[in-house]
């Protein structure tokens, strides 16, 4: 009897988050992309209702599925909270939904929430050895339930949760090592923390986490408001994030790089993205990510370019 499954990670390529703030105007299906990241929370039927999925929501993704791989992203699963795992949205809704999407892996967040959703983003994990022990067991059990690689996203936070006794990168390394799980490396979160938190260094972070466990990479942009830098996904991707992306791609073989654009979702001071001002910015960043990927991994290394090459050969 083995308790840790081994997974093969397919190399997919470049994708964008299918974000509800952009859906009304961004031409998702017209982009030459390899993946769309889907928020499972936008498909989920109420926990206090009979629906597994919001009626019609999964079917509505068919045009995207026909174009590219759908990657499941879970915000509000309650993965790292204190409710018994069986009662969480992750187990009751997200695990079957991720299977319905044929997702190659699923990503989650390093925050606390219990039967709640807005706590997420405001309640980062306590980076302590005691919590590491608890969460290793929980993450391992959850990945087993998902039946696919579970990739934890490193968080951006305004202050470290009290009671921590180890650096974040060491905590994450311990988590994936103990649980047999993987990482969704959010480079903009690393950058944001390095701007706001004293002593937090991007290079140290990347040198400490096990890069061979990075399955997905998130890149995005943010804004300075009130003397603080915010991970609001409302601006172009900053230079240091591109530099880190190149460094990570060169160091390891990742499954996908996902761009995050969102606009006003976390605070009223965030920018609202509009087609007039932001369409070109998003397309330019997508194109830059694709060029960088091709430069590092080769031109036929993405889902979409692989198909094209095979067609040409035949």
């Amino acid at each position, binding site marked *: *009897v*083995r*308790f840790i*499954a*081994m*997974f*093969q990670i397919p190399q997919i390529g470049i994708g964008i988050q299918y974000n509800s703030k952009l859906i009304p105007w961004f031409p998702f299906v017209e982009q030459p992309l390899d993946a769309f990241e889907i928020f499972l*929370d936008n498909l*989920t039927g*109420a*926990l*206090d*209702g*009979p*629906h*597994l999925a*919001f*009626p019609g929501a999964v079917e509505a993704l068919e045009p995207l599925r026909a174009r590219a791989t759908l990657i499941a992203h879970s915000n*509000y699963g309650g993965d790292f*909270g*204190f409710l*018994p795992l*069986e009662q969480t*949205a992750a*187990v009751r*809704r997200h*695990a*079957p939904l991720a*299977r319905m999407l044929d997702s190659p892996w699923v990503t989650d967040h390093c925050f*606390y*929430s*219990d*039967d*709640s*959703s*807005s*706590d997420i*983003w*405001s*309640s980062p*994990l*306590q980076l*302590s050895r*005691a*919590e590491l022990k*608890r969460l290793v067991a929980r993450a391992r059990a959850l990945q*087993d*339930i998902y*039946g696919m690689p579970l990739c934890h996203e490193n968080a951006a936070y*305004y*202050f470290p*949760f*009290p*009671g921590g006794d180890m650096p974040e990168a060491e905590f994450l390394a311990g988590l994936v090592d103990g649980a047999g799980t993987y990482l969704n490396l959010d480079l903009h979160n690393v950058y944001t923390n390095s701007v706001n938190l004293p002593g937090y260094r991007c290079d140290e972070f990347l040198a400490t986490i096990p890069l061979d466990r990075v399955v997905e990479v998130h890149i995005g942009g943010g804004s300075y408001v*009130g003397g*603080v830098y915010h991970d609001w996904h409302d601006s172009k991707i900053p230079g240091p994030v591109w530099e880190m992306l190149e460094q990570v791609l060169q160091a390891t073989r990742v499954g996908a790089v996902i761009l995050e654009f969102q606009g006003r*979702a*976390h*605070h*009223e001071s965030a920018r609202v993205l509009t087609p007039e001002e932001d369409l070109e910015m998003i397309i330019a960043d997508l194109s830059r990510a694709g060029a960088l990927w091709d430069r590092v991994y080769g031109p036929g290394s993405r889902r979409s370019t692989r198909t094209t090459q095979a067609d040409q050969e035949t």
Partner: protein
Amino acid sequence: MDAEALFRIWRRILREDALQQAVFAPDFRERADELGLSPEELELAAEFRAHADLAHWALDGYRYRLVSATVSRVRANAPMVVSVLHAHGHALRTVAERFQAAIGWRDDGLNFHRTTCDFLNHVRDDAAFAGIPGLADAVALEHASNQLLRRVAGLPPQAWVAPPTPPLLDHEARYECAPGAIAVTLEHVLTPWIEDPAQAGAAAVEPGRQHILVYLTSLAMWPGYVGLTPAGKSIFDRLQEGPLSLVEVTALLGSSQAEARARSLLIRFLNLGVIRPHDAAGRREREGAVFELQYGAHWNEAAKVRPIESNACVDAIIDSVVKECGDLAGKRVLDVGTGSGLTVLSLARQGAHALGVDISEHAIEAARAHVQALNEEAARRCSFQVMDATRLDLADDSFDVVACIKTLWCFPDVVAVLREFHRVLRKGGRLVIQLWTDLERCSMLLCGHAVVRRFAPSMGLPRDRISPFLITPESFGRQLEEAGFSGPFAPPVLHAPVFDVTGPEHYWKLYPALSDTGYYVYALLPADIKAAMNEQWRMETHAWRGPSGAVPLALHWRIYTIEKT
């Protein structure tokens, strides 16, 4: 420093205005009593004071997102009320913010219908909205719709979804309300708003009493609305109090052509799936007979092809059950749906006097022969009988333990079977039941079923058999209570071992432990189809194959242990 305790106090800081303002104030420590904090909580809350300069961003973000989430929940689940508020110049975000401030910035997570019901109550009670014609009725209607969804949450669809074809009206039968409908009386005629909720509020509605039936007949849809006549409403109300027959409905209508009207009303309710035949005793009798005829034959055929041999999966499942039975020395134990009889043997080896019952004559004969041939002392404590679990031919209070493995979902009326378990158990006796968890979690089951279904889509299943995966801890608790067991019940114990399966041949050897019916279908297929199934199995499991070539497959089940008090 305990992370859970810190998270609990941080959640209070996120939600409670007074605590949020006080925690960063210089006199915080002096205000513990006023804030309702224990000395321990005070110390934990004080931990956050070190981050006063940046914490407000986390606090503001929480509330901003919570209001956005409320807007989104309410838009999806109460579109009519949202349109009416919008038409009268009330911005939804502002109303949602006021609502959240009133309920203490409570985060319901993905319990969307709870949020929506409470929001609708807030709109109903807020003086700012008094006088908007029809708003109170729209609130009542959408509240009923959300209540209905909350009511059927956790119930297996068989308990409330309408049958696929309209049943014929049985003159002898009495009918009861299914849980999938609620009747509401409105003081305005809301027909134009119901027809186009997005335009509600823009169109005027006229005063006038209107009865609406809110009903749900499919998981693929939202609740529907249909008008009721005053007589229809009064009959529906009476049906909610208890079952009625055609004759009784006719008498209640009591006017000219009452029988024709009663017939038409009952057929309409049946077609909507909001009533179903009651007559519990008669129905049980009839279903028992059907079970014996249809299902008895099915399991008998399945037993003919199933090998009686142990394997890693069988051992793991039986061990998990035996472990929960407690000290078995000298105990009288009943194993229902015993099949191969291997559970009975394991129980007897622990010292129990174990009786295995099964509806299949062939299974009982084979189990008996297998055990008798073993020539071991425990075999003398095993006995087997053919029996229908819905009508156990056993005395009341006669067993210390009743065990039931891989069987409960096979019965058309689970509660009737649980009632029998309750009856034959002595007071203080223990019921131990094994149920699979969601299919999605059992890669072990999932890959085999996927292959078998591809080659034999119906899997030979009796059509109205309950799926094992529809019995959830929530629904099962209700069924146990209905059968006479008293809660609260201990949460089930989850077992989730992973087995290394070397290939399809190995897998099909394990498969009888997972699915009698699936294995029956597999066993009957010709050799060339089986070869194709092996290929399909390799494809289905390709992504999970480890470096050694073996496929790690997970099997998840829960063991419920219930005492008869």
